[in-house]
């Protein structure tokens, strides 16, 4: 009997009813979400406070309200806050998207960046930088068009009297190889400073993020995140298999389509804002699931965990090498690997690995 099993015995969900509304509350999940919200707020303030121009916590709070030294207000509101908020929103978007994909495919190793759209975003951005094919559009728009365009391409190529999940993944693999090759070719062909700029975006980066990134991302998430949360019931039945879900009254085809659209939308807009930040979509839902003690990746907790991972990694990326600011994607790539290995070892020990 593991500690987790004993835990389940004592922390059964309970019903809360204020007629005609009623719902299920899981104590541990609520606690974990509250803790995550606190941690995220802390990291947000911390991220705003540090930098070349250190600002103390009380000054941060004052500057957020608009009062205090004008220089501090400028730094906080125009430079630091957009960056921190972008990191927060990207983390939430990637976390929720990853949770959706993993629940839909019933596979804890599924990740939305396996279907080619992050590679497509990369190709579009590098083409814009190296070839100048940007038509006046900014990097963010290019990345978005690349991601959405690739998603559409994959879907169309996989369509043959309907698109099964398996075929989408296979076509996604083919398309992502082609995009990766195109990106590598462009990086080799471009001049050095172009390659450097492009690579800086490709690893996932929060440097120089402005309010335009925050606004676009916030706007889309206001639409997509409630949609994701509303599909909670569908997710709960889809976990049990398509047939059982259909028997329980879930419109399986519609549900899968909606979930995929929301998942793709979140990843596409998140990638457009900060580049393809590695590992967040894969690891955040798994970490959230284990923290909350549920048998499936909980949506809200996954989003909050994603935000925690991105903000935390950004802090590390900025501070680990004094004098340089590393891109956030490098830290998530380095830290994500041990997390994945830990998942691997856990499933090995439980005997279900491989």
């Amino acid at each position, binding site marked *: 009997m593991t500690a987790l099993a004993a835990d389940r015995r004592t922390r059964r969900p309970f019903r809360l009813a204020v007629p005609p509304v009623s719902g299920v509350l899981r104590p541990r999940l609520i606690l974990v979400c509250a803790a995550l919200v606190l941690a995220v707020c802390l990291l947000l303030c911390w991220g705003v406070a540090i930098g070349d121009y250190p600002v103390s916590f009380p000054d941060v709070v004052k500057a957020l309200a608009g009062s205090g030294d004008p220089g501090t207000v400028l730094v906080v509101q125009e430079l630091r806050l957009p960056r921190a908020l972008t990191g927060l929103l990207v983390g939430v978007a990637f976390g929720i998207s990853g949770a959706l994909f993993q629940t839909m495919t019933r596979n804890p190793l599924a990740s939305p960046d396996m279907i080619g759209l992050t590679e497509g975003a990369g190709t579009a951005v590098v083409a814009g930088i190296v070839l100048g094919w940007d038509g006046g559009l900014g990097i963010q728009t290019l990345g978005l068009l690349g991601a959405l365009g690739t998603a559409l391409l994959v879907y169309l190529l996989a369509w043959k009297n309907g698109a099964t999940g398996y*075929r989408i993944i296979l076509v996604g693999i083919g398309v992502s190889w082609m995009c990766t090759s195109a990106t590598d070719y462009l990086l080799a062909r471009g001049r050095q400073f172009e390659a450097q700029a492009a690579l800086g975006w490709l690893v996932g980066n929060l440097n120089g993020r402005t309010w335009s990134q925050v606004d676009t991302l916030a706007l889309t998430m206001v639409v997509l995140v409630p949609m994701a949360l509303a599909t909670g019931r569908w997710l709960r039945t889809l976990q049990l298999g398509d047939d059982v879900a259909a028997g329980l009254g879930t419109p399986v085809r519609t549900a899968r389509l909606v979930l995929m659209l929301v998942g793709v939308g979140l990843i596409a807009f998140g990638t457009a804002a900060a580049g393809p930040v590695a590992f967040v979509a894969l690891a955040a839902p798994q970490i959230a699931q284990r923290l909350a003690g549920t048998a499936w990746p909980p949506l809200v907790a996954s989003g909050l965990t994603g935000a925690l991972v991105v903000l935390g990694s950004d802090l590390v990326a900025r501070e680990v090498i004094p004098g340089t600011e590393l891109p956030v994607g*490098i830290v998530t790539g380095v830290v994500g690997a*041990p997390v994945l290995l830990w998942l691997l070892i856990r499933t090995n020990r439980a005997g279900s690995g491989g």
Partner: protein
Amino acid sequence: MNRRRSLRPVLLCVLLALLLTALCLLSIALGAVSIPPGQALRALFGHPDSQLTQNIIWSARVPRTALGLAAGAALGLSGALMQALTRNPLADPGILGVSAGAAFGIVLAIAVLGVGSLYGYVWFAFAGALAASVVVFVLGRSGRSGATPVKLALAGVAVTSLLFSLTNAIVLTDPDALNRYRFWSVGSLADQDSDVVLRILPFLGVGALLALAMAPALNSLALGDDVAASLGRRLHLVRLQGVTAVMLLTGAAVAVIGPVVFLGLVVPHIARILSQYAGIGPDNRWLLPLSAVLAPCLLLAADIVGRMVDRPVEIQAGALVAFIGGPFFIALVRRRKLAEV
């Protein structure tokens, strides 16, 4: 009817041999300076028309073609081997972390150790590739059931992402490393030392021998671990042998020409379809050599196209392999000709 059917594999071999020979000749003849086939043949057989022709053919074209042959065969062979070992038709030889290891080796050599020579990095790339795949194999072997396909793949993803992140960290801060890395990363047969093939040939040879020798074991492995064990295969040894072969073949090839591992993913599928047409079932004793012959065809074809399409500017073969092989792969997926996982 039986005799006609048993002739088909022979026909296939003959056709492929002809195709490969033709591509080799084209590769020698075509390029920024086009040499008529007659001249090319004469130069090959020791009667060059001019010193210039002699130089071009023997110092540039022949080594390049030989590299395409050797590296292509290595990647095709290791791809087929990897797919058989992991029973996963979507495996490419890079999943053991070879590409990431090679990349890391290169940038480490340049940024940290200050290796300046354009050709010195190859050994570091090879060492990095070997080290990475050893780590992946050891990690994948941890736990009860040994190095099962899923665990190997997971370990590969983890190590690959770690190494690529570290690689990116280095190249973003060191311009020399970035330059060397990006030219290597696209995958090219050009700009190589003319005797680099000879240097990696021993490793490729050993790897190929190991790979081809284990074809019967792979056939048993395809039936599942339990059945294979009951047929007398020692799973740990088989996997060890397989991973060693993949390490040597892919590591050496990738260190020189770059991570053109998509070749190892798509060629075995083409080989499977061809062997179906030839009336041979999924038999690794055919699939391995078939992949080893088909892959250089694709690689050389990509290289030739890359040289000719925008003369005298070259498009690297690595980029074109994905652009030729990718649509092929997608067409296979649509026709459900892909082996189901």
